[in-house]
């Protein structure tokens, strides 16, 4: 049974949640008229600042809370139906695990509820523990784990039934950068295997690399929704990325562009999702949209900026450490990084095997499905293409139409150019 029998993997219709106070008076409007639609085989980024109603929405999807008004459907039905909950994996915002069970017992418990035969259960538990990096610690009580380790078990638990729909509430909270990166890679891989993922987060770096589509929630209302590419693209501007150019060349290019456009600025625009997100939120705040969440004033911006600054350098290190890099390798090929990335390349198939073991769907069929049904092209696995590259490709198309002088730039091409 495929997901295709219903149009949406997740659908909410005018969903409302009002938390009353003790006297029954409406106190907090956590979700207001939310129409959330997630297509099958899509990775949907559900964003919003703290207290914007993300968790509340998820809880209504999973029937943990009753909607005040409106309806919520998952996989075309109610999640209380075992036939539907059988196909869902859920990672709550905190890992609500039994502290007295060991990791292995925890996974075994949930596996039993899914009715997995004991041989399959054992096999999957081994695979999952290895995948989340806790293979050696499976017999320790979950209560003795650090928060990040619990998070990993939480994720393993969400995958025990090889779900079609994965609902993750801030999966990377409490995780070290390595773990964050692993989860992101994992999500991409799962996406390629035809899983639908609702990724709920306020850590924008998580979402940007992974999601096909995002929606930004503020004060319980959807502020904006659409494919990541489309939302982040400045439609009235054009960006050209190239290796470092001689001033002479730059002047030439400028002159050419001036024929077409009234202005040109040579710099590297770094409009990340962060900026966009903060814009949306502050716009909503200016229009006095009601929220029950954190009213952060200028704090949000400061906090997020700090987050980015902290993260950036680590990320580059990680890129080399973890797996195939997201960026083009440095122009001068460094033997050390080559080795590292080779090692990463080698490590990757191993992980793939694990995933193959976990998911029944074969990779080929999953890919063919994703190609036909995905609203936007899936990021290809090796090497994962950066979002920026897609932007460039579109730019190239347009450039060709105008004069054809812009050279197609790609990570490998850029490298080749500098060598030539």
């Amino acid at each position, binding site marked *: 049974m495929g997901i295709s029998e219903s149009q949406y993997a997740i659908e909410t219709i005018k969903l409302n949640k009002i938390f009353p106070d003790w006297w029954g008076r409406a106190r907090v409007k956590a979700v207001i008229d939310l129409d959330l639609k997630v297509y099958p085989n899509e990775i949907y980024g559900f964003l919003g600042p703290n207290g914007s109603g993300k968790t509340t929405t998820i809880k209504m999807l999973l029937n*943990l809370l009753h909607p005040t008004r409106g309806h919520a459907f998952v996989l075309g039905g109610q999640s209380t139906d075992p036939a539907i909950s059988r196909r869902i994996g859920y990672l*709550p915002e905190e890992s609500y695990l039994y502290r007295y069970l060991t990791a292995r017992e925890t996974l075994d418990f949930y596996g039993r*509820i899914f009715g997995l035969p004991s041989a399959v259960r054992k096999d999957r538990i081994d695979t999952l523990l290895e995948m989340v990096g806790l293979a050696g610690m499976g017999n320790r009580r979950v209560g003795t784990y650090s928060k990040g380790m619990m998070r990993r078990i939480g994720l393993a638990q969400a995958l025990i039934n090889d779900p079609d729909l994965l609902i993750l509430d801030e999966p990377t909270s409490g995780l070290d950068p390595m773990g964050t990166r692993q989860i992101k890679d994992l999500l991409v891989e799962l996406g390629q295997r035809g899983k639908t993922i609702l990724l709920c987060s306020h850590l924008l770096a998580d979402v940007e690399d992974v999601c096909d589509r995002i929606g930004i929630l503020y004060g319980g209302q959807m502020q904006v929704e659409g494919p990541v590419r489309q939302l982040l693209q400045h439609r009235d501007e054009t960006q050209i990325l190239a290796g470092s150019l001689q001033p002479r060349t730059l002047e030439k290019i400028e002159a050419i562009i001036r024929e077409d456009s009234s202005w040109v600025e040579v710099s590297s625009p770094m409009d990340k999702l962060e900026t966009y997100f903060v814009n949306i939120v502050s716009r909503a705040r200016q229009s006095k949209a009601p929220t029950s969440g954190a009213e952060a004033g200028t704090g949000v911006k400061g906090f997020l900026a700090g987050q980015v600054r902290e993260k950036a350098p680590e990320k580059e290190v990680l890129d080399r450490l973890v797996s195939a890099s997201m960026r083009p390798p440095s122009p001068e090929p460094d033997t050390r990084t080559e080795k590292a990335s080779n090692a990463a390349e080698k490590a990757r198939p191993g992980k793939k095997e694990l995933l193959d073991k976990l998911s029944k769907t074969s990779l080929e069929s999953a890919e063919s499905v994703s190609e036909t049904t995905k609203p936007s092209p899936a990021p290809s696995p090796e090497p994962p293409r950066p979002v920026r590259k897609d932007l460039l490709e579109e730019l190239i198309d347009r450039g060709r139409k105008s004069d054809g002088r812009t050279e197609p730039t790609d990570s490998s091409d850029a490298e080749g150019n500098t060598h030539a």
Partner: protein
Amino acid sequence: MRNIWAVANNTIAQAVRMKISAVVILLLLILLPMMSVIMIGDGTLMGKLQSFSSYGISLVSFLLSLLTIAVACYSLSTDLRRRTLDLVITKPILRYQIVLGKFLGVSLLNLLLLAAFAGIVYGLTLAIPSLTNAEPVERARAQAEFFTARKTVPMKMDTESMNQRVQQRLEKLEKEGQLPENMTRLQARSVLMEQEQTAAKSVELAAVREWDFQKVHIPPDPNAVLFIRYKFEAVPEPPNSEVFGQWRIGDFRQFQTADRRFMTPIYGFERSDSVRDVHEFTVPATVVAEDGSVTVSFYNSPEMNFSTIIFSQMELLYKVGSFGMNFSRVVLLVAIRLVFLAAMGVSLSTWLSFPVAVLCNISVFFAGLVNTFFMDAIDGIGAFMGLIYQFTIKWFLYIIPRFDGPYSPAGYIVSGEVLPWLFLGKAFLITIGIQMTLLIVVGIYIFRRREIAKVTV
């Protein structure tokens, strides 16, 4: 069922890690052997056996009841509070399976503990005679009166004709205007009733008193015996506090038959017994007629006595089973109690927080421990107050189970009296079949409707 088992297992894993479980288990492991040594009862072997076994089983039953209450109330409410249930409930499991799983886990754990500790009490009780240097007579007595399961046929009082006679006398006194001034009609009536009851129990000098016992169905056994157990007072008190009696036991209807052919024997005894003590003597069970009736007669001989004898107790007993069998029935009675408390705890914690649920559960438990006592007391209260109680407390006492009186485990073991299947079945039907089922159904109903992730601060 698979899901219920998974939840039950998980609940047991949770419960055995609770401190109170360790405390209860340790306490019982230490106290029971200690009690078997230090408890001596009235000094006889029989007394030691009686006090150890009854206190032992009472202690096991009490502590396990408390443990059941604690675990049952804790498990579900903590899962809700810690939100671990948020995750479980999103799996393909139905809510009733969670409630039943919790209930099953708590019951199973406590029933296992009950089996283990009841086993310890049983083993120690069996070991006590060989550990003491009691006289052979005492051993024989313990064997006959303690290590047995006897059915008791009580002395029957014809209350109907007694009531009639009291009514007649009362009306007669009224007509003659002889009712004392300072007495209400009701008080006069109760005085007359007392007189009538004493009269029914007493044997005047030179009189013969017969007690008929019916439905005495002794299991076929050539060595079977009947026990006649009695206690009496004498007015005026005899000098050596001893009363001489001539007893006859058998089917006296045979005297009236034309051919005077005796199918069953009739035994005669003469014995002298102290007043105000319980005595027992035995006769071969062959005295019982085929239709299960047997008569005991007592002749207050004027040659030997000069008092009126008042029997406060007169029972006929016979063995219907072994001590082990009776002990296991008693343990079943305790099991019913534990299962009910488990159901109540789980049911309450579907909507109450842990402290409130425990409080409710403990209240019901203690009310149950005095239930029969209160019910009887209320029935004895005057008309007006009685009416108030009738509609308030009595109603409450009526819907909660009873854990005292005939529902308390110790009594059966002390007296070596059999706990009838019929009674056990009735207790099971009412406590498990009706009260427990109702609680579970209500619990499931509430749990199915409640918002699992709801936070109340």
